[in-house]
């Protein structure tokens, strides 16, 4: 939660200071990066059997429906993995940025 903003002249952080637990945020970034890696593994593992379905069904409307459904959702699958990875990067970069700011404020 944010601290009450100081109105100047007293002890405490300067106005506009935001409350961030930098170490925990860095840890969260690490966890998110691990989760993104887990998703990448799961995605890489499911693609060959997903493609195998095209060999298990003779070419037909069902074949086309499967190709359509998997084609569209596998796009979301890949995007979701990239999005989790992006979350990890954002959190990591933010933690690094806050750490730099804190260091400068402490100088």
């Amino acid at each position, binding site marked *: 939660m944010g601290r009450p903003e100081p109105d100047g002249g007293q002890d405490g952080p300067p106005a506009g200071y935001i409350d961030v637990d930098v170490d925990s945020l860095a840890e969260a970034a690490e966890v998110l990066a691990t989760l993104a890696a887990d998703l990448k593994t799961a995605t890489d593992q499911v*693609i060959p059997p*997903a493609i195998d379905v095209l*060999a298990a069904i003779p070419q037909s409307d069902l074949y*086309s429906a499967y190709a359509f459904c998997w084609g569209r959702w596998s796009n979301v699958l890949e995007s979701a993995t990239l999005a989790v990875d992006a979350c990890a990067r954002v959190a990591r970069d933010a933690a690094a940025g806050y750490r730099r700011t804190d260091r400068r404020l402490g100088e």
Partner: protein
Amino acid sequence: MSGGLTSEQIMLRIERTDHEALRASAKAFDTAAEAFANVRGRMNGVILDAHQMWDSTAGRSFGIHSQEVLRGLGDVGYTLGFLGRNLREHAKIVEDAKVALPSLRKGPPEAPYRTTDIALATVMERLAEVFHDSEIKVKKAFFSWGAQAPGKLPIPGLPPPEKQSWWEGLLFGPGPAPTWVTKDGDPWHGPGSALQYAPGSKAAQELGEPYGYDEDGNLVPAWQAAYPDEYYPFQESGGGGAIFRWIARAGRGGRAARGVQNADEFMEAVTGSHGWRPGHIERHIREYYHLPPGADVPPWMRTEFTNLVRAAGENSGKVFRWSTGGQPTNTIIYRDPNTKKWIAVQFHQEGQYAGEFATAFEPTPAQLNAMLRQNALG
């Protein structure tokens, strides 16, 4: 009969459906669904914690974005489970149907399920109905849920118009160009048509979405359609793959320049094309069989490779849009039932060699997946 398909055709479909492979894929989908659910749960915890420890505008933006990612993960997890469930249910129907097949396979080798026995025909008809009902149920589920995924719905490409011989052109004028139809069954002159209207214009809106026909002869949106008009299945009933319509015959400029009728003509066109010239095709054969560059290609490899291309053509039902070296192609895929290796056969879509064989190679699952994605998104 079930719709536009005969019981005989459906018996062959049952025979060719690999229920064990469907189950194996269903299991893989279930495993992936579990992995996604697990990641989603853990990510949810991390995001809740991050909300506490990162109190700022950036932190709140992160929270909002993360919630969207969580929703996406939820949808993907559901999809993986949904695919697994549907494939498993269909596999069960196939497995049950296959039990009855040996007692029905009484016809000659070229038509193993042809019969004049009324009792046998009745059993086949019932079996065909159960199987095809399952196909329709799963097909509808896949199309319906597939359409829910983000992204525009695609409008599949159409084969080029048949080029007539000089005397046909003289007598009858240019041949009709294949078109999708409107909801009322009239020609649709939207994107890709010679008579297209500006997107979003009043005329385009009145035109509506393109429609075509499914394998049972029902009018359906083009992205679900097997054919642009009702006559395609009749024209293809003599055998042959869907790619045949897209092929330029050997000796361009001679007879009708597009469309082959059977596998022999298909192979004549393929092996007579620029892409099949020795220096080029041998490189692909070497790659397919993992031979070192420059190694001699044994005759059996050339024969087997040629037979695979032929099998891909004969069995083609769906023509995918893909590219090779930046050039758009019409592509068919086939998996060798013996070696389980995929082969992708590509034909030039435009330019000097339009309609001709371009290349054939072994695609990776990731490449095939990318091709499916490209074709499923508008």
